[in-house]
């Protein structure tokens, strides 16, 4: 009896020690994601998830980070709702103990999470939301980084592109009536002012507006010869349909809203007239990294048969590159401690991503890895987002 008890006791001690050791060795590094996984913007959350998953698979296949610790993605749905985003971020920080949080498409959600991550000293990587104040948030130290377009820079890019491509100068602004539209109204007006220009008119529309003819009629009457459009895919399509009804053929230069869904289906044949900004396109010649990522996506997701199915491309590409930068920062920091990762971001060795080769992308005061030169201008041709240079 005694012998049995002693054997059982020593066996259980042995198991528990082995177990503890095993769990230390294999304890994963958790990477959090707070994005829209349901609702109208659900495709964006799916795209970010895919980009992160491919990068994480590659990092894990190469042995993980910090002596073999694997990365594990923990996703939470913010339903495009700032309050839900904050609750999700709190849960990821305090319960899941994630090392880094990735954000989603919605600027208001990211803006709501920013004060929390700065307070809790958890690095935040934005792979999509373009609001200027997300990274430019005034906090010191600032834990928020981004691999995506930035409204302020996109606005300058839109003005440059319109001038260069259409040789026009009378610009009308047609913007969705929400903080995103407002932020771009400021940005576009500033970008125009920097060139000594002013907009001939600035009109707002609601996300649920059916008919935008009255607003567009005002812009036409004001003499606009090019429109700057800022809105998500549904409302952007309503602008194109309203222009069609008016019979007004006018060049449209847009922020990346149309890329968020089935723009050709929603806007009809005139969808192709909208030129919009992207950070990456899987069409055309790909770099070795691009080829590797496309292959991995096709292998992991049966619904992806080619570049046309990797949509929206910006979500996948930005998230992939963001994850590579985060992994490099964790590796260089030698720990998952938030402040160490933040400091490592400023010292990053070169990282070759999809969008470009990043060399020292971040420094204090510069928390955006992409610049105006990294943008790609694209159009929807037959339901596919093609770079303007390819068509």
């Amino acid at each position, binding site marked *: 009896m005694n012998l049995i008890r002693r054997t059982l006791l020593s066996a259980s001690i042995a198991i528990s020690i082995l177990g503890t050791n095993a769990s230390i060795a294999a304890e994963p590094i958790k990477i959090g994601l707070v994005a829209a996984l349901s609702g109208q913007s659900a495709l964006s959350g799916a795209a970010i998830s895919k980009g992160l998953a491919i990068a994480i698979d590659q990092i894990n296949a190469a042995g993980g980070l910090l002596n073999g610790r694997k990365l594990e993605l923990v996703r939470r749905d913010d339903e495009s709702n700032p309050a839900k985003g904050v609750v999700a971020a709190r849960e990821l920080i305090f319960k899941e103990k994630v090392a880094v949080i990735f954000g989603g498409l919605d600027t208001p959600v990211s803006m709501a999470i920013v004060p929390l991550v700065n307070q809790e000293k958890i690095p935040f990587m934005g792979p999509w939301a373009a609001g200027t104040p997300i990274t430019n948030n005034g906090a010191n130290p600032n834990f928020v980084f981004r691999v995506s377009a930035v409204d302020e820079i996109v606005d300058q890019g839109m003005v440059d592109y319109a001038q260069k491509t259409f040789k026009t100068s009378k610009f009308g602004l047609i913007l969705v009536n929400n903080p995103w539209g407002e932020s771009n109204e400021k940005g576009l007006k500033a970008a125009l002012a920097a060139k000594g220009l002013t907009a001939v008119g600035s009109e707002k529309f609601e996300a649920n507006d059916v008919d935008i003819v009255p607003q567009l009629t005002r812009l036409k009457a004001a003499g606009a010869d090019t429109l700057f459009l800022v809105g998500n895919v549904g409302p952007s399509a*309503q602008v194109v349909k309203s222009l069609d009804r008016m019979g007004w053929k006018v060049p449209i230069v847009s922020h990346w809203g149309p890329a968020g869904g089935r723009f050709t289906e929603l806007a009809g044949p005139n969808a192709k007239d909208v030129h919009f900004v992207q950070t990456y396109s899987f069409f055309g010649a790909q770099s070795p990294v691009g080829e590797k990522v496309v292959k991995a996506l096709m292998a992991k997701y049966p619904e992806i048969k080619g570049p046309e199915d990797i949509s929206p491309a910006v979500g996948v590409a930005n998230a992939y590159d963001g994850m590579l930068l985060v992994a490099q920062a964790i590796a260089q920091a030698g720990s998952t401690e938030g402040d160490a990762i933040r400091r490592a971001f400023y010292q990053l060795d070169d990282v070759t991503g999809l969008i470009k080769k990043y060399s020292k992308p971040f420094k204090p005061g510069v928390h955006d890895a992409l610049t105006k030169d990294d943008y790609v201008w694209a159009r929807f041709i037959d339901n596919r987002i093609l770079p303007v240079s390819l068509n």
Partner: protein
Amino acid sequence: MLFSALISGLGLGSMYGLMALGFYLTYAVSGTVNFAQGSSMMLGAVVTFTFAQTFGWPVFISVLVALMLCAAYGLIVEIVAVRPFVKRGSDAWLMATVALGIVLDNVVMFTFGKEPRSLPSVLATTPIQLGSSGVGVYPLQLVIPVVGLLLAAALHFISRYTRWGTAMLAVTQNRDAAKLMGIPIQYTIAAAFAMSTMLAGVAGVLIAPLFNVNADMGTLFGLKAFAVAILGGIGSAWGVMLAGILFGIAESLITSSIGSGYTQIIMFTLVIIVLALKPNGLFGRAQVRKV
């Protein structure tokens, strides 16, 4: 510019009117409304899309099925979210109808998907130019006011000249007396709810080709339609339809003359002013309250 705003507003306003007719119908019979009319409108559009686009059924049959399902949903609203509360003399049906609408929106989001989709229609492909002013409209934009006015006329006719209409009026005037006369009150109310959601379904089917189809497409419409119903005087079919058209035209005129930033501020301020001056709505009559 003025003409273009008028045309735009007419189409949009008729849509508000159609949905507001639904509020009128149930209010007239039971003194209750389905606050989630927007969801019923969305249901009409989503079901039509599913049958016509996903399953490839002929459009006419898809629309019929969609409207029947809308009617069935109206019955569910009445049986689940209105009747039990009214029976107990509670006003909780207010919240219950909203809750049911939210449930429906989310069920659709799960089953139909999250992306906005497009429901093409031959009536909304090639715009026709009106006059020499360069004002273009899709034929569907002209069909909507016609359908709206025809339905308002039909409702008016039914309520005045048919047995069901007489029964409806009797229930409105005096429930107990109507009951004593052998009028099946409960059926009359249920039928009114079914027709009400069907009207919203018609609005959804008509608007889908001009807009897009998505799970939360009805929210703002529902809200505006309710404002229109109150504005028109919720007890008059013609009143709510006309109020809808006025609301739509005013919206368009304000946007094109003053600018879109002010539209909602001015519109809803106007609603408050009109209701302050005419508490029973533009075309409504004060109810006689017997004490």
